[in-house]
């Protein structure tokens, strides 16, 4: 059995997506894959059991039946952090080690998801380097591509993780820089003894949020075209101008949600005229039956929210781009990127699993 710890240097870098995609791809090649996330950040309650939101999603997506207390044993929130500062957490390393042992039974590969960055978890003695040591896991760095910073981060990661360092996957690479990461960067890293397994391109779909998730996050109510709740929203625009300006602006952005007041029929119709995935009407106003009918007919869900426009904009802004990969469409998409862009054979070879194929 081999373990791979997936870490990142910043949060929202796409670790959960990569883990789900990798796991499914490895499964397709006949491997039995297990999963754990020792240190979580956003606990939710499932069947009266606290579990990290990402960990729960990954388990569900992979159809794993393991006890959630093993999959997601620790959290670092303000509450737990201050608690651990007052009172020792005991021996988390031993607990995590035991969990991994149970989870890895009958598995070929364990994918272990790191915390928010690779220093996170130190208070529990569960920072990335400590975890690698305790769990005998190879460290895979998922680096969110940055033209100026990525190279140094990769070089430093090798120094930092030493013998545990497996290599790098670059994420969110602008299409125009894919060529650079493949050739110059790849060759340079190799000359420094670092494996770059490949790159995943920046992708609007992966950043998007479903209409249903958005409505739920806003405590909103979808009043038409409910069957389009799975449509993905990539961006947001606010409608507070005249109809002609609105049309010109709305045309320039595809797959968007438009936020406007319930009484602005002209803006609502302008949005429906352009590539729009959903309309959010603020202030609890309902649209005119004519607009509602139009939206229903062309299949654009209208979400009614009680917040004012300014607060709604803030919430939608926060939601888009920090979205989890909780949709089948996105999982398919990331698998496609992994198949096209990552050298899985090389990765398997590096963790000593190539013989299994």
């Amino acid at each position: 059995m081999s373990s791979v710890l997936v870490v990142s240097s910043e949060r929202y870098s796409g670790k959960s997506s990569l883990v789900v995609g990798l796991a499914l791809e490895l499964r397709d090649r006949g491997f039995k894959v297990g999963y754990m996330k020792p240190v979580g950040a956003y606990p939710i309650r499932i069947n009266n059991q606290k579990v990290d939101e990402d960990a729960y999603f990954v388990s569900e997506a992979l159809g794993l039946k393991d006890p959630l207390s093993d999959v997601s044993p620790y959290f670092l929130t303000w509450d737990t952090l201050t608690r651990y500062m007052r009172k020792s957490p005991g021996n988390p390393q031993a607990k995590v080690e035991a969990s991994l042992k149970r989870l890895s039974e009958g598995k070929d590969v364990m994918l272990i998801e790191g915390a928010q960055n690779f220093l996170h978890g130190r208070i529990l003695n569960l920072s990335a380097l400590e975890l690698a040591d305790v769990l005998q896991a190879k460290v895979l760095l998922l680096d969110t591509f940055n033209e100026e910073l990525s190279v140094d981060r990769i070089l430093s990661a090798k120094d930092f993780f030493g013998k545990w360092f497996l290599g790098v996957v670059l994420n969110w690479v602008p299409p125009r820089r894919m060529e650079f990461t493949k050739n110059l960067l790849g060759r340079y890293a190799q000359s420094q003894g670092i494996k770059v397994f490949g790159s995943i391109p920046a992708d609007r779909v992966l950043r998007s949020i479903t209409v249903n998730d958005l409505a739920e996050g806003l405590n909103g109510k979808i009043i038409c075209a409910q069957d389009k709740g799975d449509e993905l929203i990539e961006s947001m625009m606010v409608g507070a101008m005249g109809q002609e300006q609105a049309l010109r602006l709305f045309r320039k952005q595809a797959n968007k949600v438009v936020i406007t007041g319930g009484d602005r029929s002209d803006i609502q119709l302008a949005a429906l005229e352009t590539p729009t995935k959903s309309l959010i009407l603020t202030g609890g106003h309902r649209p005119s039956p004519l607009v509602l009918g139009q939206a229903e007919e062309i299949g654009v869900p209208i979400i009614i929210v009680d917040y004012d426009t300014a607060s709604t904009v803030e919430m939608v802004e926060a939601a888009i781009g920090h979205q989890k990969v909780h949709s089948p469409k996105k999982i398919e998409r990331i698998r496609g990127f992994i198949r096209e862009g990552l050298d899985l054979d090389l990765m398997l070879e590096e963790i000593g699993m190539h013989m299994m194929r």
Partner: protein
Amino acid sequence: MAARSSRSSDKTHKIRESFFEPRSLAVIGASSHPDKVGYAVLANIVKSGYQGAIYPVNPKAHEIQDIKCYHDVHDIPDPPDLAIIIVPAIHVPEVVKELADRKVPGAVIISAGFKEASLEGRRLEKEAVRLAHEGGMRLLGPNCLGIMNTALPLNASFTRKLPPKGSIGVISQSGAICTSLIDWARAEAVGFSKVISLGNSGDLVESDFLEALADDDETRVISMYIEGVSDGQRFFRVLKKATRVKPVVFFKAGITQAGAQAASSHTGALAGSESAYKALCTQASALRASSVEELMELSRTLSTQPVPKGPRVAIVTNAGGPGIIASDSCEAAGLVLAQISAQSAEKMRRYLPPAASMHNPVDILGDADALRYAIAVEAVLDDPGVDAVLVILTPQAMTEIYRTADEIIHIARSTEKTIVCSFMGAGSVQAPVNRLQKEGIPNIPYPDRAMLVIGRMFERQLELKKPDSRALDFKVDEEGVKRIFESYKSRDEIQVEAEDCRAVLGAYGIPYALYRTAADLPTAKKVAAEMGYPVVMKIVSPQILHKTDVGGVVLGIKSARALATTYEDMMANVRRHMPGAEIYGVGIQKMVPEGRELILGIVKDPQFGPMVMVGLGGIYVEAFKDVVFRLAPLTPAEAARMLRELHAYSLLEGLRGEKPSDVEAVEDVLLRASQLAVDHPVLAEMDMNPLMVYNASIGCTVVDVRMTLGG
């Protein structure tokens, strides 16, 4: 009649047979309760003097208003030509089905509670239209006032009385406006031929009735109240044809932001832009009224008076002030004050007091009686240098208002020139004015406004003289452009990249400055060497919209060395200003010589589709907003005309010894852009800014261009 039928479409034929001239009527939902709409509609039909058979339908009655009542549609002995439906919305689809089964050709649905009310109502409306079409039946409404034909006569509406018989055909998207116009028409003795209230336009729409009225012998003028149209491109074609036959006066409500907002919630459709309606009226030769009042004044005048053959107006007045007012508005109205000939002056001199003025305005003095008016009006009408006469009357002590009106009525019978009266005031002139108007001489109580109406009528004459002009068909690579746009569609992208934009221009023969995107410095150098220096360098980044603000544009790079320095500086500048921006590289463009800068573009209107735009370019564009729009397809005559409508046109002609610009080359680009827009509806917006225009016969070049795609 035979000739008319052969030139009219099947639909127009059906509208005439069924909606305008039905020989029999069914009233579904007729009622014997005086407070019900079903009662009022039946009563109005009867009271209007309708001569055909009437079949009230109501399962609960044997007789309504002394007419035998039928249990249901199947009970009616012969299928009627038209059915009026006043049952609740929920029952309308089944009634429509029964009528369609009996091969009834048309129905007016007066009932409300459809698209305008709820999702369920929308479903019912669609269902009714579907069932009607299945049975070959056409529908007017739902949610409308009804229909009227004063010649038949027939008042199939819930407005109590018919307007006077006349030759104005009214089409309105607002039932309430219909009611008010009818009330006004009755008070002012204005005659209507047909009144059509469109309601939700679930099936038949404004274009259908416009076509039908253009073909209707009893209608001389078509008068429309519109908030939005159903299919703008069809409306444009139909309107263009209609105005060839008779004048169409057009009032569009909802032209400001507040108005458009109100209109969109009223109709459930995006109102077309003001520029689109302006272009529509110009290109289709329709007369746009700026108020409901003007709509009616203009319709009335056009329906009763001949259009002036020329712009020369004679004013006959019994007071100096109003004569001056009328003269002032003469020019604004696009008219000229006629030169009264010596012979005409002599004719008048014999009978008029010496203090009277025989020049225009002809002032017959405050004590003028009816005879003086008759002499002066007759003399100016006889003058070959006069195309129209405005008769102004102020009610003074000696004025014979009644007799003057009679004299004018009498004279008007034997002239083919335009006569408009302006009997000023309201009280003492009212009865004589009514008499004038009954005899077809419009009275507009304010002389300045009267002059403006004559001006608008003359516009009609000018439009009639406009030669027919057709869009050209350039040889272009339509398929190539289609492939480019489709590749964006397949990637779900809507902003067309710089190089592809140029390829599109090239495919349509629009000249542009050479341009290529280079991902790095070596490529940039290679590209520049191929193009030849001097070149322009522009940053290429999806996040940077205002390139100059971040140091992202450098002009006049003359050598490879300068190119390298510029590249490094630009990258550093841009990184500093916008650290997060994703940089694709730089665009290298061949430097073009200075010329006069114009903006050309395509904007898609939600109702009328692609519009071509031209305007003054450069740094003053925001300040002057000197732009002109036209609907595509553009004809060569329209391209020439739109350019000449620019205030900046005088700059293109060459000011103070400057050489004139290559206007023909710009017209060519306008026409090619129009063809591009028509060929590729997916092109939602295109901006060619600037278009550098050079001296005559040297041409023009697009320097920068942006395109946005969308359904």
